[in-house]
């Protein structure tokens, strides 16, 4: 584990391990640290769920409740050992997450946080009304954790259990984020269309983070139950759920350690307020909620992204990023041995939005080793045609077939499996991921390791090959210098090129490029043109939408012209240039 990036974590672990042995350490501080650890576990799940995955949940406290009550019932009523109930607690939280998640992750926009508030409150009332959970009084007399004769009764011993759990959870979470699955999760927050175009199954990825966050909350609940040795509904209610989210946002919702930092800030702040405010203002209770609320609003106004990123930006170090080992290769995507000459056949494709016919019975095809350009004035239906081919939109009628087989409105994840990859007119990269990570999303379907294996670092060989492939494609498009920069920091033209590298990672037979040359300088356009020619000569076909006529006329083997959703011409660049209909569409009627 002693890799350079892991050094700070190792130091942190050592410091945390040493704290209880510091002479004269007030026991009360240890209790605070225990509470911070418990809260950090839940917040870490929320970091993944909310900060990274973009799913806001107010209901995490309910999952703590599942963890706590499971062990409470099993240890008191059935006399099971706490260690036996640990997997069961996690399992119950996980199953609850599957059930709630199937409903919740399909909610879009603000329905999602509202939905979580609703079931969070519902579950709280359920906990407080069920007879076998002890109703409002809850369950007391839960046995402490014990190893051999060591009974973890006092806060100083369970401290180790809690912080080992926090450290392991942090490591697993960071491993997960730094993997094929992690990249898929990180891509979700920016909308699912780009991720799905490279084979990510968005609802499944969302459900995964939902379950992961719930299991971490369940773990926290299990530890909590054995820490206070009782379980009652109050700590699992709506207020607590709101507070966990608050912890994550304060720390920095996008950062694993932000969860820990946020927990520390909030727990200590509450404690300080509770113990010192009455001294200042004279005994009045409830002042701390007032000050707490006001501080929260102030903090959000000063640092809306949280304290962790603010802190990191002020540290002098930059993280060391290893360059991928380019000698590793990914096996090519399996493809049909005898490639027919027609790759893509569009036959009377039609798309209607209400009364508007965006694509009106358009037919054309793309042959093997051919660059076809789709041109036309704005609003001609070019991007819509792309979306029909790639499954983002379903055609109203007509037939689109790839390699002779109709795709029948297959979803984007299936289209990319056929070897069709694309770029977007409006760049869809994840701005806070590096160029390398963004491009590696393109190779998503060519990796195999799932969430579990990446958490335990069993995915390294697979991962190294994916990154090597991504790095190779980045070199190929000429962005080797920028490989470790954040995608959001590149110019728009370069971002378009990154999208091309990402599409190339699919190992496609057909590349769909939506305005690839927009925002490029003259030299860059020439480089792009020569790259595309090189790709064609290597056996790939390209279908591109482009407005730069010089670029298109120079590059394309064949041009299809759309106007108001209808194909008005098709032919070689020379023929298109002199076609009267095309001139009319672009310049208006000839005098």
């Amino acid at each position, binding site marked *: 584990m002693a890799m350079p990036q892991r050094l700070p974590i190792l130091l942190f672990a050592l410091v945390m391990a040493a704290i209880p042995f510091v002479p004269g350490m007030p026991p009360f501080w240890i209790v605070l640290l225990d509470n911070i650890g418990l809260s950090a576990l839940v917040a870490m799940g929320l970091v993944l769920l*909310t900060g990274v995955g*973009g799913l*806001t949940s107010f209901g995490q406290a309910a999952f703590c409740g599942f963890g706590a009550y499971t062990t409470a019932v099993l240890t008191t009523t059935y006399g099971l050992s706490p260690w036996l109930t640990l997997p069961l607690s996690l399992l119950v939280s996980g199953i609850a997450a599957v059930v709630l998640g199937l*409903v919740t992750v*399909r*909610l*879009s*926009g*603000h*329905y999602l*946080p*509202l*939905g979580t*508030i*609703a*079931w969070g*409150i*519902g579950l709280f*009332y*359920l906990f407080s*009304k069920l007879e076998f959970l002890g109703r409002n009084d809850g369950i007391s007399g839960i046995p402490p954790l014990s190893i051999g004769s060591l009974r973890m009764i006092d806060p100083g011993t369970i401290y180790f259990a809690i912080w080992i759990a926090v450290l392991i959870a942090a490591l697993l979470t960071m491993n997960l984020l730094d993997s094929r699955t992690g990249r898929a999760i990180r891509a979700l*927050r*920016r*909308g*699912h*269309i780009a991720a799905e175009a490279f084979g990510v199954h968005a609802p499944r990825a969302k459900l995964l983070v939902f379950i992961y966050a719930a299991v971490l909350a369940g773990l926290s609940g299990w530890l909590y139950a054995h820490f206070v040795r009782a379980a009652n509904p109050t700590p699992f209610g*709506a207020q607590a759920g*709101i507070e966990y*989210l*608050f912890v994550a*946002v304060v720390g920095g*919702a996008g950062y694993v350690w932000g969860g820990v930092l946020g927990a520390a800030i909030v727990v200590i702040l509450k404690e300080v307020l509770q113990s010192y405010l009455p001294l200042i203002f004279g005994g*009045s*209770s*409830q*002042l*701390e*909620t*007032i*000050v*707490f*609320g*006001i*501080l*929260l*609003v102030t903090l*959000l*106004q000063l640092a*809306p992204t949280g304290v962790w990123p603010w802190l990191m930006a002020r540290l002098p170090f930059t993280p060391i990023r290893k360059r991928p080992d380019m000698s590793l290769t990914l096996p090519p995507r399996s493809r049909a041995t005898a490639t027919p000459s027609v790759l893509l056949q569009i036959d009377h494709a039609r798309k209607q939005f209400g009364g508007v016919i965006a694509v009106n019975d358009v037919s054309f095809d793309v042959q093997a080793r051919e660059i076809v350009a789709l041109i036309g004035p704005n609003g001609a239906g070019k991007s819509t045609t792309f979306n029909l081919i790639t499954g983002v939109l379903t055609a109203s009628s007509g037939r689109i077939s790839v390699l002779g087989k109709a795709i029948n409105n297959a979803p984007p994840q299936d289209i990319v499996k056929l070897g069709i990859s694309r770029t977007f007119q409006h760049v869809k990269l994840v701005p806070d991921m590096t160029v390398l990570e963004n491009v590696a999303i393109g190779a998503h379907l060519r990796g195999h390791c799932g969430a579990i294996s990446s958490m335990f670092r069993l995915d390294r060989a697979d991962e190294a090959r994916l990154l090597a492939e991504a790095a190779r494609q980045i070199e190929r498009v000429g962005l080797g210098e920028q490989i470790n920069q954040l995608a959001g920091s590149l110019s728009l033209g370069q971002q378009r090129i990154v999208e091309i590298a990402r599409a190339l990672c699919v190992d496609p037979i057909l590349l769909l490029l939506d305005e690839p040359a927009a925002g490029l300088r003259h030299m860059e356009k020439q480089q792009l043109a020569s790259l595309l020619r090189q790709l064609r000569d290597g056996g790939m076909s390209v279908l591109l939408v482009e407005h730069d006529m010089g670029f298109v006329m120079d590059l394309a083997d064949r041009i299809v012209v759309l106007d108001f959703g209808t194909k008005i011409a098709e032919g070689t660049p020379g023929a298109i240039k002199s076609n009267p209909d095309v001139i009319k569409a672009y310049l208006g009627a000839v005098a």
Partner: protein
Amino acid sequence: MNTTIMLFLVQDGITNGAIYALLGLALVLVFAVTRVILIPQGEFVTYGALTYASLSAGQFPGTARLALAMGIVAFGFDIYVARKSLRRRLVGRAIIVNIALPAIVFALTYALVGHPSGIAVNIALSLAIVAMIGLFLYRIAFQPIAHTSVLVLLIASVGCHLAMQGFGLLFFGAEGQRGPALSNAAFTLGPLRFTGQSIAVYVVTAAFIVGLWLFFGFTLTGKALRATAVNRLGARLVGIRTTLAGQLAFLMAALIGAVSGILIVPITTLYYDTGFLIGLKGFVAAIIGGLVSYPLTAVAALVVGIVEAFSSFYASDFKEVIVFTLILPVLVLRSLAQPAVEEEKD
């Protein structure tokens, strides 16, 4: 079951549902204009109710002090933001809205407290105090972060809820209060007894629903508010003052909250923290209405009220569980009905 019980439950449900409808409307209003999910809506209810109850009992309500203090802070914010170009008109407006108005209300309250001044005066004072708190709340807490994500606004909203609930305890104590009824008239119709209070609830709710519908559908200001919700930048470009829109929305929401509080405080005892749960049920209705539709929210609120009445009769333990899980199937249906909208966030 017998018809009388059923009628009773329906009546009870409609009365509660009407209140939820009012709150639901306010939530929809605020969300539609500012994208803030207004968790402190419940506090507006308790503030309105308990201010009214305090005034009726001849006590000086702490909320008047809060309004004045928030006004001063809001004034500070206004001046700080405009520090580079302090024009006399701007400062004048800031003084009138932030300092003079709450000071006048404070002075009036101070002068009138202890005198038997009648229900109407007490109601007017309560409404003025809470409305100003709503206005200043937007100015202080939300206006500086109006451009951020719904999530950040939501967390800020939670912070406001915590602070306001704490103030509620500070001002009104932990004991519950009741206020005098608007009218003691009552009549019976078949087995049902209608009180003047419940009639007032129906009438006020109906008036607000129609009023809001007219306001947003048919007036320029209403349309401007809606435009702000859809696209802040676009609205600004066509000359809509988005900050004013936000302040207006909060003012109206606070007013609606206070009205509902005053309507129910003669019927049920309210505690400093009761508002939260009442607000959440208004929330359920607002969500079922999709946070956009006023008539749908009103209908949903009635359904919530009736479901609550029936479940408190048949399974009183699980009343809240049932009410809150009511949302889930609705949310699923809504999400299925309008799937896969690409959301461009941040």
